[in-house]
């Protein structure tokens, strides 16, 4: 059999979890990370990151809409997916996740975005025309009350929703790590640290994505980047990245020290089939290099342009690194045999329902949704749908 070395059990030769299962935790991670960045302003009162607040919420929503699609493309019978909602089994983590997803979408993200935009939505519904007016009128839910009192209620309700949203975001992404971490048959995955590592890497990737989007969109709009905001976002990204790296290294050191019966097999895997994606891409290029650069920014006084370039470079590296991490977990965990005597190979398809083209489409789709959301709900005060609303 091509691509198989040593001894594999027959059911291990073909990888069942493909690139789409790599994409799925990556996308949900971006959602959770973007939401955590938004909560910095709302809950922790980090005023400096305010310019990214609405963008972060819309980014989280755009990616959340796409999050279940990789799973649906992966399924043999996606048309049966509703059965998970109608007849969920209480011992199935995946069934419970369906409800967490809906809760997070409806009760957290949509509710919070609606509360935050309500004042503008009411005004836009009165000042725009045509199809836009109809959309805004539907979004007002028939209430045009934007009195001082009602906006105060919105503010309080929004605060509570964000407070509830933080554990929900952690649950949303912690679940993904939980699914892998609780697979006791697979030593590459089975670790109680897995959900925690997933959450922290999610936060880093989400913050990096929103930071890059903020930089790119501000540049495209011909506006000046708020450097205090960018520096603060980068600082939080750096801090969380340090925690994430520490946790991943803790997991690694623990595995090396424990050196159980799977260790030689996994060690061989990391030094051969996963060498480029794990050692080169994830650890050196994607983690150590951005950590060193972000650390330098913290201690060395640099001109604005240098900081911007470093942030953009590090943001891109972090996004690649977190994707590599998901790849190494999902694909890496299926490359070796439970017999610890053999290895298989993942050959990615190109134009099948689980192939590379679908994966590229699914990673671009959230950007399209984000574009629509930005048109409908502009997050910039000076570019409101109606100029009179500019703060």
């Amino acid at each position, binding site marked *: 059999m091509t691509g198989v070395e040593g*001894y594999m*059990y027959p059911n291990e030769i073909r990888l069942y979890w493909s690139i789409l299962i790599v994409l799925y935790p990556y996308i949900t991670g971006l959602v959770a990370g973007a939401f955590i960045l938004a909560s910095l302003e709302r809950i922790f009162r980090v005023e400096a990151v305010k310019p990214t607040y609405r963008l972060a919420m819309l980014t989280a929503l755009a990616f959340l809409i796409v999050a279940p699609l990789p799973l649906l493309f992966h399924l043999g019978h996606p048309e049966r997916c*509703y059965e998970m*909602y*109608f*007849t969920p*089994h209480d011992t199935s983590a995946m069934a419970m996740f369906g409800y967490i997803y809906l809760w997070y979408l*409806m*009760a957290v993200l949509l*509710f919070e975005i*609606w509360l935050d935009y*309500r004042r503008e939505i009411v005004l836009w519904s009165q000042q725009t025309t045509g199809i836009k007016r109809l959309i805004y009128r539907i979004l007002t*839910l*028939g*209430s045009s*009350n934007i*009195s001082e*009192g*009602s906006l*105060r*209620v919105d503010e309080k*309700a929004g605060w509570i929703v964000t407070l509830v949203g933080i554990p929900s975001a952690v649950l949303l992404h912690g679940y993904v790590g939980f699914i892998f971490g609780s697979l006791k048959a697979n030593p590459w995955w089975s670790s109680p640290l897995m959900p925690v590592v997933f959450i922290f890497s999610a936060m880093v990737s989400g913050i990096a994505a929103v930071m890059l989007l903020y930089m790119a969109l501000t540049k495209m709009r011909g506006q000046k980047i708020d450097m205090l905001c960018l520096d603060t976002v980068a600082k939080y990204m750096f801090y969380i990245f340090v925690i994430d790296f520490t946790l991943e290294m803790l997991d690694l050191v623990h595995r090396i020290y424990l050196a159980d019966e799977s260790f030689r097999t996994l060690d061989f895997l990391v030094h051969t089939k996963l060498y480029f994606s794990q050692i080169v891409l994830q650890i050196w290029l994607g983690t150590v290099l951005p950590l060193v650069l972000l650390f330098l920014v913290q201690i060395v006084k640099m001109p604005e342009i240098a900081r911007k370039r470093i942030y953009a470079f590090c943001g891109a590296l972090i996004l690649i690194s977190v994707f590599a991490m998901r790849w190494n977990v999902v694909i890496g965990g299926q490359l070796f045999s439970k017999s610890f005597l053999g290895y298989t190979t993942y050959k990615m398809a190109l134009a099948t329902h689980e192939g590379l083209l679908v994966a590229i489409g699914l990673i671009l789709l959230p950007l399209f949704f984000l574009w629509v959301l930005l048109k409908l709900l502009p997050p910039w005060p000076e570019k409101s749908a109606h100029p009179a609303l500019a703060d």
Partner: protein
Amino acid sequence: MSVLKDAGHLFRFVGIFVVLFLIFLVVRGFVVPKTFGEYGHYRAAAIGEIAANPLHFAGHQACAECHADIVATKAAGAHAHVNCEACHGPLEGHVENPAAVVPVLPNTATLCVRCHEASAARPKGFPQVVAAEHANGVACETCHNPHSPAIGSGSNAGGAQ
């Protein structure tokens, strides 16, 4: 009173939740089979439907009623726990009508290697051979009686009957 008035729009949002939840319950009432969950996390009516499927396998006891001698030979050999239909295939039709449905004799050259071809995955004590070297194309039953495969045990190579 004014607080309630100022929070009125929140009730509208919550109202959408309630409406969607009610729609969910109604659709669930139609979509989920009536017998689901009667005995466990499955559709209870499926048991009756499966039981109504036509039988294919007759079972070991049915063979013994007519072929007691072969069953006795088999019971004394290494294949005592291999069910007749594991090699001969489903025979309910033969039991129902022995004259009209006559089972085809299995080809031992291809049948035996399914279990006895050497493989690292099989337990060490399990009899296994590299068929190409061991038999060189000669059918297994030339030397082994499939019903009692050890050479010299019971009647010699008798072929699958």
